[in-house]
């Protein structure tokens, strides 16, 4: 193996591993949380936004969609009950994707929820919806539940059924890291024996998919994708069951890794394209050239929730110019800084900070959250692990304060974190050079 040339080594690498487990996990958590919060925030307005009787009525949506074939489950029926069901399922699937329960399956349902609602009322969205839309599709192809997920925890337990928590160090670099499989079908492999939920979910969804197929609502592309996913889950389950280390299982693993790595790459490219487009088009604008651009959005009624703050921020011409030029420079430069880890991290911090400011000052919280979630794909692994440990510690501290009784109800604490066990961690070079 050592004599492998670089190409072969690269191929082995992308077939053997699903790269960037922490990055994909944080992207998953970020987008699931953004969409979940958005849906909850719009709960009182859901019917006006997406309901069959909203201003953009079901009938009008149908006329538009018949021209462009966008995917939306909301077009399958104009009933109000159906709408409520879809909205509810969108909430549930985002919550479950967030905690990483049957992650792959939830990522598909999450995508269905996002596309259904957004495509139903295309004129309600903004840039934030747009980025969620794209990432929801890309996430389907990733193994985004390798860490920081209920799946990872379940798999770790199935693999290591020892009772004390003492010797986890031996579990590999860090236990959950090792959870490379897709766990939806059968998390535990042979160790846990019977996972009932996975197969049940598989059958239920297969049945639902059959019904939808029978109704003829899906175009060939979606049929292929959904049935393909379904069959792949079945194969995976069978392969794991028959021979956990068999050829079939390894081959499926290779395919899943390839898809994951490709999707991860596409997610990163997409983020770069967003910044590049935003930056390069700005350069052409006279307001970005004369250094006043940042002043104007803050004067628009629709983007100035805090007029006093906006006035304060724009009271100094030089400051406005610096921010204006800085914004363009950062956006244009970002893709190129990926070649240098240190510079990239600095710019990343700047951009995340700027989005946090935009969230408040321009009144675009969900747009900003979505952009920060997209940025997160470039965060260094070391930072993410530190973040994970910090969250885990905080959680434990909080749980320690909660009386025993309620603690038992929270099964071993909330999911997000399965990590903090890196006693045996090899020094890790971050993600990104």
């Amino acid at each position, binding site marked *: 193996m050592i004599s492998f040339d670089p190409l072969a080594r690269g191929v082995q690498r992308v*077939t053997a591993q699903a790269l960037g487990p922490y990055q994909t996990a944080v992207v998953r958590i970020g987008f699931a949380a953004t969409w979940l919060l958005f849906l909850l925030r719009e709960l009182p307005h859901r019917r*006006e936004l997406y309901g069959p009787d909203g201003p953009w009525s079901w009938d*009008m949506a149908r006329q538009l969609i018949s021209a462009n074939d966008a995917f939306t489950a909301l077009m399958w029926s104009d009933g109000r009950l159906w709408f409520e069901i879809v909205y509810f399922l969108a909430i549930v699937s985002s919550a479950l994707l967030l905690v990483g329960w049957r992650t792959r399956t939830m990522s598909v349902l999450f995508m269905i929820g996002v596309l259904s609602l957004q495509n139903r009322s295309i004129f309600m969205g903004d840039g934030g919806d747009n980025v969620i839309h794209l990432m929801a599709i890309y996430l389907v192809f990733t193994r985004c539940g390798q860490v920081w997920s209920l799946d990872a925890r379940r798999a770790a337990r199935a693999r290591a059924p020892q009772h004390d928590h003492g010797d986890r160090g031996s579990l590999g670099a860090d236990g959950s890291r090792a959870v490379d499989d897709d766990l939806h079908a059968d998390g535990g492999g042979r160790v846990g024996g019977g996972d009932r939920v996975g197969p049940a979910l598989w059958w239920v969804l297969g049945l639902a998919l059959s019904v939808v197929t029978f109704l003829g609502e899906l175009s060939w592309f979606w049929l292929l994708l959904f049935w393909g996913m379904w069959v792949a889950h079945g194969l995976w389950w069978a392969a794991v069951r028959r021979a956990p*280390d068999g050829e079939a299982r390894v081959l499926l693993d290779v395919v899943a890794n390839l898809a994951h790595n490709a999707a991860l790459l596409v997610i990163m*490219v997409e983020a770069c394209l967003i910044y590049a487009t935003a930056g*390069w088009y*700005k350069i052409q604008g006279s307001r970005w050239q004369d250094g*006043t*651009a940042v002043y104007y959005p803050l004067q628009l009624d629709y983007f100035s929730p805090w007029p006093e703050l906006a006035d304060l921020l724009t009271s100094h011409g030089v400051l406005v110019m610096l921010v204006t030029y800085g914004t363009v420079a950062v956006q244009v430069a970002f893709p190129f800084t990926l070649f240098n880890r240190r510079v990239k991290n600095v710019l990343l911090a700047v951009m995340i900070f700027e989005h946090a400011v935009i969230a408040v000052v321009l009144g675009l919280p969900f747009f900003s959250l979505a952009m920060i979630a997209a940025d997160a794909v470039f965060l260094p692994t070391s930072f993410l692990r530190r973040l994970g440990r910090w969250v885990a510690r905080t959680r434990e501290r909080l749980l320690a304060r909660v009386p025993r009784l309620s603690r038992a109800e929270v099964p071993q604490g909330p999911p997000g974190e399965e990590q903090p066990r890196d006693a045996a961690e090899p020094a890790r070079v971050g993600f990104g050079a």
Partner: protein
Amino acid sequence: MDRHDKDVGGESAGSDAAPTGSDAVPTGPDAAPTGSGAASAPTGSAAASASADSGAAPAPTGSAAPAPAPADSGAAPARTGIAALSRRSQVVAALVLAVVVATVCVHVGMVFLHVAPSNTVSKEHGRTVDDWIYPEFEQNWKLFAPNPLQQNVAVQVRAQIRTADGTGRTTRWYDLSAQDGAAIDHNLLPSHTQQNELRRGWDFFVSTHDAQNRPTGLRGELSERYIRRMVLLRLHRHEPLARGEAFDQVQVRSRTTAVQPPEWSDEKINGKPVLRVLPWWSVTPGDLPLAGEDRARRDVAVAQNGGVR
């Protein structure tokens, strides 16, 4: 009917008519991956063994070091990756790899051409690009670019209401955008109904109507209906109808005011608002959104069926 005209899920703050001059658009796609993906840390050879703590056939793996043996099962380097496969499976894996690589290249290229300014390639293959991109991968990242919007557009509405005794009354003008603005003020979480609905609906209307306010095609008609439904929904909240009353007609106008240049600038602009007044539109029962407004719907129906002629 044709794809070019699909609507943006994205912010439409920027104009579509971007100057064509930039061949300077960066080659983002290639830049990204190399920098980060490839360089990611070796994921610990130990980890790789994870799924397969196999007793069976310890095949050599490409991941460099032999995995530290898992404590509980006493053995086995990982059996993962293409190197662990038999010849036949390797062929399958290679095929999959080829398909994946091709798909990624095509997709990234298509998205690039979609977001880049119109250029030699996209002029030639615009159709192909659109076929790939629409409807699900459409995107628009001209966020506040090339120039941020520099005017406040206020959409205002008034209605003629037919009263129970057969006469009519005309309401005052309601500034719906001002209401949106007030709702957004000091709001940490503005709703899409406040920030996007009317703003983007009006953009849609403007982009599908000519200067004489005549609709251009199906989309124009859809946008008229959309605006009508939107304003009626709002009106109904402010003009509760008495028994027997019904909306007869509505009129919409927009009032566009340029944002004044900053005080530290010596620029002077004309601050006079520009009005665009649409003709009166008759209201039909189908124009009343949300079933909550059942009563209004019924009222219109009654009026139209000759209850009060």
